[in-house]
């Protein structure tokens, strides 16, 4: 082992609600069925790759040699795959490397980077994305460990803090909004268009508020029936599955619509809705459009007594509990900090495996070898924690800073490594 640059880098490149507008996120959104194709496109470019794509983010986590890594090529690959070059610019992407990339994934996994802090769904989505990447043989030792550690961090936050209590999520926001408009939901009918996970969760929360009836429609009738079966496990309520071709004729019955189809075009247009609203005698209607790309014509929001909310709109609703969640965030950061340090010690220890083997091989005294390895690890942890501390104090550090930090750290670690390989022990400065 000679230079630090041989140590593989972890990079993270992507778009999220902080870096890009909704239109860009919509266009770059990758469905689970598309994921293997995109992952395959990266196989020649990156050593390891995992893509997390939700309604608010499309993020590529990858491992590559720093000298060979071309972030612009990564961006171009995803933009070309989604044919989104007309609206997507390089500036819409965020970029992190090494500690920054790992820290970012941990923040995503715990939901403190989410549009809606406390949204537990992100853990399921990360798990699913990781499994798809693993199944596609796109991940390796580094990303496997990174993702497992991120999921473990999410679990710790779930068990050790109250961040997820009160379900501060898209579904929670939708229910709050429904209560703010209708008061009681006991005589209300909900129509679910599509059978996505978030739609189901939203419907579940509405059922807990005792809505009268749920109508579900989906292009695949079996999926709609399955969703109703699942929902019926939560609570008994009046329900009906409607053929997708007929759902528009049933909209006048609905007080709340949740739409999350995978359609590329609007499933409900302004002119359809204008007539429906007049048939409803001016009764208010709440439409939650959680689909990416959007399902509902945005112009519908201009109609009186129609409240159309998309993902971005829901952020404002959820932030009403912003203060409460912000108080929990320091606890979450502490957990992230602990887990990140453990991960980094492991990550930077990889090149030291030869040194450890050298100690074990050349030592005649087992206890002395054990002592040297402990000293080596302590020294590693000390050096890494210095960089780690700096990172945690300045989380918005740029990629160039992270790379220089990484390089400085690698220089110090290489010296330790050379000491061990040359002198059989660590030489103090």
């Amino acid at each position, binding site marked *: 082992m000679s230079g630090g640059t041989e140590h593989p880098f972890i990079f993270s490149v992507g778009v999220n609600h902080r870096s890009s507008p909704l239109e860009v996120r919509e266009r770059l959104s990758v469905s689970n069925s598309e994921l293997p194709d995109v992952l395959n496109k990266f196989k020649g470019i990156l050593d390891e790759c995992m893509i997390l794509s939700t309604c608010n983010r499309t993020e590529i986590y990858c491992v590559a040699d720093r000298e060979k890594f071309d972030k612009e090529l990564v961006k171009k690959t995803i933009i070309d795959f989604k044919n989104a070059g007309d609206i997507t610019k390089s500036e819409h992407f965020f970029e992190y490397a090494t500690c920054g990339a790992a820290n970012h994934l941990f923040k995503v996994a715990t939901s403190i980077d989410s549009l809606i802090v406390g949204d537990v769904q992100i853990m399921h989505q990360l798990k699913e994305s990781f499994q798809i990447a693993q199944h596609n043989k796109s991940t390796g030792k580094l990303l496997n460990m990174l993702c497992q550690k991120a999921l473990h961090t999410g679990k710790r936050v779930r068990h050790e803090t109250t961040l997820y209590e009160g379900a501060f999520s898209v579904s929670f926001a939708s229910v709050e*909004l429904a*209560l*703010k*408009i*209708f*008061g009681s939901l006991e005589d209300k009918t909900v129509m679910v268009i599509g059978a996505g996970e978030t739609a189901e969760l939203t419907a579940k929360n509405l059922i807990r508020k005792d809505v009268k009836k749920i109508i579900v429609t989906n292009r695949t009738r079996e999926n709609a029936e399955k969703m109703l079966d699942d929902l019926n496990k939560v609570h008994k309520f009046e329900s009906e599955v409607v053929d997708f071709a007929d759902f528009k004729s049933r909209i006048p019955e609905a007080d709340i619509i949740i739409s999350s189809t995978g359609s590329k075009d609007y499933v409900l247009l302004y002119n359809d809705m204008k007539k429906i609203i007049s048939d409803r*005698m*001016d009764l*208010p209607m709440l439409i939650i459009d959680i689909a990416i790309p959007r399902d509902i014509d945005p112009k519908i*929001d201009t109609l*009186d*007594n129609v*409240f159309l*909310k998309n993902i971005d*709109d829901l*952020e*404002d*609703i959820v*932030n*009403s509990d912003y*203060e409460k969640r912000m108080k929990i965030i320091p606890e979450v950061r502490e957990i992230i900090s602990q887990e990140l340090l453990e991960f980094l010690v492991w990550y930077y220890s990889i090149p030291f495996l030869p040194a450890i083997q050298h100690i074990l091989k050349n030592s005649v005294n087992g206890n002395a070898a054990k002592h040297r390895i402990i000293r080596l690890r302590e020294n590693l942890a000390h050096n890494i924690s210095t960089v780690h501390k700096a990172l945690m104090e300045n989380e918005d550090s740029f990629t160039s800073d992270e790379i220089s930090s990484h390089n400085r750290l690698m220089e110090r670690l290489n010296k330790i490594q050379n000491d061990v390989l040359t002198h059989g022990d660590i030489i103090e400065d």
Partner: protein
Amino acid sequence: MSILMLHFYFAGIIVYGYTFWKKTSDKPRRLEIVKKIILVSLVVLNLLYFIFRISAYGHAPITTMFEIMSLMSFGIVLTYLYIELKTKETDTGFFILVIAGLLEVISFSFIEELKEINPVLKTWVLGIHVSAAIIGYSGIILSGIYGFLYLRLYRKIKKNQVDSFFKKLPSLKLLSSLTRSAISFGFIFFTFTIVQGFVWLPKAIDNFSYLDPKLISSTIIWLLYLGGYIGIITKRFKINTLMKLAFAGSVFSVLSMMFVNIFLKSFHNFY
């Protein structure tokens, strides 16, 4: 007594205002009890005030515009207490008490006893006439406040502006229901006032005239609210239109009555 009453109005505005504008949505039980005590005290103090005033001066407190303002303030607080007890909703109280308190402050600043009282003011029929009118106007003012709050909340929801209005106000459905109830409540009492006035006033007042400015303005307001009431019953108005009309109608009613009382001469003024 009136100074003590004013203190309670201020205390009510501060406590209701604090719970409405504070950042968190929780409702400490102690504060809710304090709010209820202040509101009930205001009703009791108002009642005692009018009992003492009637005993001291020997006539109903309807001889000057400022006495009527005080009576109006009482009507608003009394109607609001009924609504609060019925709906358990306390977050609109701030807006109600600001209006009621403002009327009381103006009344307190300018009220004075007349040297000569028109004999008609001592008849019980006039007492019923004015009381019904005050309750009618209280309903109209409350419907205006609730209509205004509905329109504010509607806009906040549309624009995703999550602030105290969004967090603390009751649902749009409840606000619209309160507005409709207040309009209906006000209209019924106002109708009684108008009918009784048309039947009784020509007999009781020597210089009665159908062209009297107050009579005309009251009739116009009544006709406007008749339209609103029919709109509510037949559901012909869109909700938003009804709320705008409730707010505009309330402002128009108060301003027109103030204008008529201050600037125009009327047989309807007994002072």
